């Protein structure tokens, strides 16, 4: 099947570009009404529009509040809508202008940071001004981030809105750092590709109609899913000037070249392979990136050339029948027609810049966002528990004035991952193999993955409904099954086998990672394919070290309770009675153990545990692990300590050649 590659090209006439005052205005007293600034900004917009149209592409024109006061900008939008089919939309970026400052008496310009009262007032103002100029309300809007409360208000008041730019992927503490801690777009933990936001939390996709916010969200830029995870987001995206900012271009024979940009677009085209043939890409370059004074080390000529080349590449793909240019509103319709709520977004991503052959897999659905790192043996290195659909209001007057990030349970860059300095542990979901006194972590076993989408079958090979897809039900061990409606499809990563060498034993192990559609479970299977000595003792330790947070700094862990559940009957009683809560509640059998987190470095081990779990009350999340296979299966929980503010959930078992050990990690909301 040939992939369909859809592109949104968005332009905004930003009369006072975000960077203009600081960059081009250096050495001048602030004056956002400067005539030269307004003229230049509009010229850039005209140039961007021309380059798209010359290449046969239509755009979405996102009018800014400031541009609604400019007759020429309004006239251009109308003309281009008529002539080229461009959509006239409305962005909540680009608020600053004389009129705005006089009315709101603030220099704030990020819509999500205002108080709810101001958000409502600004939205009304901007949408009504738009209506006054164009005679209709827009179908698309956006900002760098759209918090759920803002989106809900807009949808309720202006129901014509069906599409919005709603987050910048992994633009968080890393971007803040790159900007000398002065750029407050803290919005890690969201989707990298279009999604339907839930009404409660923008980053977490809706699982059903009841949770549907009514819009299709698109990310601000299509970013490099490897480079941006460990670097500045604004260096690696389908934004030609981002590529210049990252300095991943070069000069040869007097010419500037940036194959990385084209490689990035092409890798996005390939993502259709993992998403039922639909690939998406967007370009949204604000005018501040193309100013006449040059930007970063690049003179205007290079800024212009890179934009022109970018448009030409899209235009050429379109001419070859390889690209469909849609407006944002058209894309929203297309998305709703071709996708459903539970269909995950998947991306098996490879390094296209640093010359390694590293591979990451990103998975996003209404219950979780996950990053699997093949360079670390298929370890989960980032995990966001969307199943909790955490309420997280942002802006002035809320507990999170700037921080929009969806909290993580695992984040290898902010919480160490496998490697720590001298002491303690970092967050990661991996496994260790133990033989005698030797121990090898799969994080050090580099491998590659193949992706597959399969229909879930029962033992007789029949297709099953997900509600019945209880893979562990022979032992009744899969905890907390969800009610499912769609037929059970799985997305599966099959990793190339890795060799584990002990001083007197070699083991070949293969990992499979399985995501059930509509389920909040991640199943990991470890198959012991070969052992040089079939009688040798081999132990596996499946573990997840986790915590919670949104930034690089530790949080208070005393809201965490850990449990290792004993006999199954008692656990099921706990489930029947609603929820297993209290540590010493009557639902736990005498074999069960629990720890209320107090940084005391305690550990508990429960033979044949039915489950181990952690309640993390600060983020209303319950994470549960079950394990089965091999002999002497033991579940364990570990508290951390002040220098290692983490917790560990895990299982150990003894394995032989041919054995498979299966664990399931389940996420859910716990109030």
């Amino acid at each position, binding site marked *: 099947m040939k992939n369909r590659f859809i592109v949104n090209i968005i332009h905004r006439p930003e009369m006072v570009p975000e960077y203009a005052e600081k960059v081009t205005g250096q050495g001048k007293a602030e004056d956002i009404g400067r005539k030269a600034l307004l003229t230049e900004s509009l010229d850039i917009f005209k140039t961007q529009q021309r380059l798209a149209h010359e290449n046969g592409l239509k755009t979405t024109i996102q009018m800014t509040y400031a541009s609604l006061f400019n007759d020429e900008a309004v006239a251009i939008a109308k003309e281009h809508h008529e002539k080229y089919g461009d959509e006239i939309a409305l962005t909540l970026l680009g608020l600053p202008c004389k009129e705005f400052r006089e009315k709101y008496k603030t220099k704030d310009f990020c819509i999500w940071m205002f108080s709810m009262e101001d958000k409502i007032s600004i939205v009304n103002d901007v949408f009504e001004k738009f209506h006054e100029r164009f005679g209709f309300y827009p179908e698309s809007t956006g900002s760098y981030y759209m918090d759920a409360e803002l989106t809900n208000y807009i949808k309720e008041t202006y129901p014509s809105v069906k599409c919005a730019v709603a987050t910048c992927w992994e633009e968080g503490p890393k971007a803040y*750092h790159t900007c000398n801690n002065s750029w407050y777009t803290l919005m890690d933990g969201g989707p990298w590709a279009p999604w339907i936001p839930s009404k409660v939390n923008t980053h977490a996709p809706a699982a059903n109609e009841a949770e549907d916010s009514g819009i299709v969200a698109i990310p601000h830029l299509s970013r490099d899913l490897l480079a941006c995870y460990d670097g500045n987001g604004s260096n690696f995206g389908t934004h030609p000037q981002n590529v210049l900012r990252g300095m991943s271009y070069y000069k040869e024979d007097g010419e500037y070249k940036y*194959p990385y940009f084209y490689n990035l677009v*092409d*890798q996005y085209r*390939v993502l259709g392979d993992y998403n039922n043939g639909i690939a998406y890409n967007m370009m949204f370059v604000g005018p501040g990136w193309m100013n006449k004074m040059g930007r970063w*080390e690049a003179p205007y000529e290079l800024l212009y050339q890179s934009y022109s080349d970018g448009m030409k590449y899209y235009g050429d793909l379109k001419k070859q029948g390889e690209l469909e240019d849609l407006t944002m509103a058209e894309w929203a319709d297309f998305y709703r027609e071709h996708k459903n709520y539970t269909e995950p977004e998947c991306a098996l991503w*490879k390094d296209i810049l640093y010359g390694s052959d590293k*591979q990451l897999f990103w998975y996003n659905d209404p219950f979780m966002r996950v990053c699997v790192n093949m360079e670390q043996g298929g370890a989960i290195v980032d995990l966001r528990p969307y199943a909790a659909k955490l309420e997280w209001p942002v802006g002035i007057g809320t507990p999170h004035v700037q921080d929009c990030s969806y909290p993580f349970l695992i984040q290898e860059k902010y919480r160490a991952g496998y490697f720590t300095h001298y002491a303690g542990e970092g967050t990661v979901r991996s496994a260790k193999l133990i033989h005698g006194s030797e121990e090898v972590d799969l994080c050090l076993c580099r491998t590659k993955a193949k992706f597959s989408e399969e229909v879930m079958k029962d033992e007789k090979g029949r297709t099953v409904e997900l509600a019945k897809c209880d893979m562990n039900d022979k032992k009744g061990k899969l905890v907390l099954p969800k009610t499912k409606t769609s037929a059970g499809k799985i997305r599966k990563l099959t990793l190339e086998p890795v060799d584990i060498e002990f001083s007197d034993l070699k083991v070949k192990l293969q990992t499979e990672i399985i995501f059930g559609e509509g389920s909040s479970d991640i199943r990991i299977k470890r198959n012991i394919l070969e052992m040089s000595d079939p009688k040798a003792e081999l132990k596996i330790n499946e573990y997840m070290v986790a915590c919670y947070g949104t930034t690089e700094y530790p949080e208070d862990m005393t809201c965490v309770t850990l449990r290792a559940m004993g006999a199954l009957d008692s656990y099921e009683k706990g489930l029947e009675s609603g929820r297993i809560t209290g540590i010493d509640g009557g639902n736990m059998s005498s074999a069960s153990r629990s720890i209320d987190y107090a940084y005391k470095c305690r550990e508990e081990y429960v033979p044949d545990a039915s489950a181990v779990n952690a309640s993390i009350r600060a983020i209303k999340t319950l994470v549960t692990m079950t394990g089965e296979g091999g002999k002497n299966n033991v579940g364990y929980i570990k508290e951390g300590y002040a220098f290692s503010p983490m917790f560990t959930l895990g299982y150990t078992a003894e394995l032989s050649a041919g054995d498979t050990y299966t664990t399931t990690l389940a996420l859910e909301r716990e109030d």
Partner: protein
Amino acid sequence: MAQLGKGRLNYRCPSCFMRDLDIDMFYDKEKDEYCCIRCQYRGNEEDVLAKNEMARFRYKSMKKRFTMEELRQ
């Protein structure tokens, strides 16, 4: 010494760039050099450009154009 100003382009500090910091440098017209006000880097335009080349060492595939087949996994 007069105050620092802006140079021809807004060059960033190559040393800070290497640690993922974008810091625009300011220009000393008397010494014809750019100065980082966060770290200790100072250098003329030629030196800045040379150091920027050095910063590219990590982009080993910077000049490679991948085929679609190479991108498929």
